[in-house]
């Protein structure tokens, strides 16, 4: 089917909010090229479980497209219209399985060497829609805090190597109250600027108990049963020799309850947790990967005002000889390797933090947990600077918060 043949009935399988949106915008959808419309529908079909920032972005795209005149509309989407597709792609049920279409389209674009043209078209589209209406002013600056190195007595690497050119390095930090100081700062901001999914706490281990009002919280430990259920499904698929494409399709169709997640309390956050495990690579196995990917996705999707990420030691990757000797042994932890992972993860979190609106005013802190080293980035903090003066974590937080 081609987009021009779309009718309201086509969306009867969509969740309520998604159905309403698609039906309201059907005339726009009908004018879009096939290489484009399923990609937009891939976002629309999960509209009911989108964060507010994501909903605003989808709405903005539709508003922008609706206000373009015919020539502008065609011009914007012309690069997508020039993508050569196949009859097999046209025959797919791209309305109800836009993710499946996307998967097939991606393979087709690589095989026909159209991937670069498509990427360029997508980048241009995103830039133009983003520029069509400015982001609303933030109620306050964004703050990101990453805590790394739990369980490490002494780092074997020079920490913050990639971040030091961008911020002030503190080497004589006092952190008497430890991580509690960080959580207090998070709670304070959540109280001062309450907004759904604006304040996040991601823990790569077991989360510290806290007053979580107004804070979206995700942890590796809390998802242990879900990870185990997912790994059991992966094992079944592996033994059935169904192949990766079928498994990806199964993952894309998975519901939270399929791996024991209850969507009743907060369906949006539950869907987010599901996506971390089904769309992330390595998130099911390594806690450091989980923390980094969860932070990336929270920033990209929810665009929070406050983000706290705390890394915990991941399991040690065992050598082939160890695997042979002990196929089912309980894995040990690897604190030093985890610190290397987390150090890089903190850099990636900062990069993703910088991709959000208000980046020039945003503030960022990375702390080597229970140690004297930290780096702080933000206005008023000298890039590449080094302070060896004794200073408390609270003082640094006060200075940047």
């Amino acid at each position: 089917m081609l987009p021009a043949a779309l009718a309201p009935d086509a969306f009867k399988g969509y969740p309520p909010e998604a159905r309403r949106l698609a039906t309201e915008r059907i005339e726009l959808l009908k004018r879009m090229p096939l290489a484009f419309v399923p990609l937009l529908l891939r976002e629309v079909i999960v509209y009911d479980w989108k964060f507010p920032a994501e909903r605003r972005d989808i709405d903005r795209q539709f508003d922008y497209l609706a206000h373009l005149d015919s020539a502008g509309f065609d011009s914007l989407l012309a690069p997508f219209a020039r993508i050569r597709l196949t009859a097999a792609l046209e025959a797919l049920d791209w309305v109800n399985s836009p993710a499946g279409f996307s998967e097939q389209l991606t393979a087709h674009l690589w095989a026909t060497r159209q991937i670069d043209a498509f990427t360029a078209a997508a980048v241009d589209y995103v830039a133009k829609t983003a520029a069509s209406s400015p982001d609303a002013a933030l109620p306050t600056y964004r703050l990101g805090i990453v805590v790394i190195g739990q369980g490490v007595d002494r780092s074997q690497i020079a920490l913050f190597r990639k971040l030091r050119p961008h911020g002030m390095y503190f080497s004589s930090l006092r952190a008497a109250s430890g991580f509690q100081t960080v959580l207090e700062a998070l709670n304070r901001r959540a109280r001062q600027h309450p907004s759904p999914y604006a304040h996040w706490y991601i823990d790569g281990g077991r989360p510290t108990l806290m007053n979580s009002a107004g804070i979206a919280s995700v942890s590796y430990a809390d998802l242990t049963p879900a990870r185990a259920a997912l790994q059991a499904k992966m094992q079944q698929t592996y033994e059935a020799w169904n192949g990766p494409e079928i498994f990806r399709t199964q993952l894309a169709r998975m519901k939270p309850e399929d791996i024991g997640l209850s969507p009743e309390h907060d369906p949006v956050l539950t869907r987010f947790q599901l996506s971390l495990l089904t769309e992330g690579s390595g998130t099911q196995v390594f806690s450091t990967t989980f923390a980094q990917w969860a932070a990336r996705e929270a920033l990209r999707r929810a665009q929070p005002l406050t983000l706290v990420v705390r890394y915990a030691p991941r399991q040690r990757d065992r050598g082939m000889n160890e695997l042979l000797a002990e196929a089912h042994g309980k894995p040990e932890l690897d604190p030093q390797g985890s610190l290397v992972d987390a150090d890089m993860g903190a850099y990636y979190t900062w990069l993703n933090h910088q991709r959000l609106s208000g980046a020039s005013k945003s503030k960022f802190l990375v702390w080597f947990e229970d140690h004297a080293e930290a780096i702080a980035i933000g206005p008023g903090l000298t890039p590449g600077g080094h302070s060896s003066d004794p200073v408390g974590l609270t003082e640094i937080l006060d200075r940047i918060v």
Partner: protein
Amino acid sequence: MYSAGLDLRSATPRQISEAVSSTRRTFLRTVAGMGAATAVFGPGPLRAATTRKGRKTVVVTFGGGARDDETFSQDGAENIPHLLNELAPQGTFFSQVVNRGILGHYVATASLATGVYETFNNFAAVSPDNPTVFEYFRRDLNRPATDAWVIAPSNGFNRIGESAKRGYGQGLGAGVILPKRLLAAALSQGTHAQYQHLLRDNYETPLYAPSLEGREINLDQIASVLRVSVSDFTAHAQTLTSPDELSVYVAKQLMRQVAPSLLWITLHDIDIAHSGAFSLYLEGIRRSDRLCADIWKTIQSEPEYKDKTTLLILPDFGRDSDMDSGGNGFQHHRTGDPLSRTTWMLALGSGTRQKTIVDRPVESVDLVPTIGALLGFDARFSQGKPIPEVA
């Protein structure tokens, strides 16, 4: 590291590739004291010191590329001491090898082996559509089956030895050794399920393990080909920490016992980067660096190879840049950005210049015609062309 002189957001892919190349060149000049081929020798072809007769070629690919950030850069130098200090000064370094094909490891390695950008499904158990370097070599030079071998990670690569091309294909390609499959087979006799995890080594997806087909040697051929008993093979494997160490052990055994003229080794440990654990990715790079030096040392010490072998080392492609928001940095190679497409090659040994850098662009598909020029066959279906600085 590239953003200092170039705004990546507004640069064209060609500009980014050239910037990558320039950075690698500058770095190698500084660290390894290497010079540019164009400045020193001119662009003309360099003739081999030995005749084609008796020449051998060993190709080492990384089926899981490493970025310059973790290799050819100030920060990355500590991860590749052997490549940087021992191997690069002895050879010619191509700082701009561009891969315009599909960035999946099996299809990309197959493209390297055919000299054509193959377009099949990366996860399908299929032979390449175009003749492989092994088929050209054996057919044109009338070489026996024992003279061309591939040692590869388990998954998918069992078909890489010979193509589906009419007139080539079955029985005309290379023997394929998948060391992990051999080990799993050896260990699984009677306890099959316990060692299934050995086969799950395709980091791009945790699920792929195709059925055994193609010209792959099996367990009962170990003794006749490698001259090692199954029990000795298994015992030695149990002392190794990674699949790539096992591959290099098998390669060395093959070089000593069979001495093939064309040997292709695909290392894969680096691709653990897909798990997202940066420290494990670095460990993979350091191990590959050490294993490359080990292979070169073996070449230099084995009489059948010494002074008549060209060693070509290259990643199949790179990994995503930290700066591309569409990816997740080192973890994947999904964006197809210029950095993930621009890699390098080191050529050393017979027919190559020492302490030389070539920074003009060459393509991944140039590899097979270049080997053809080295060994004396015509890669007639290849999209590439011989690289004169080697061939």
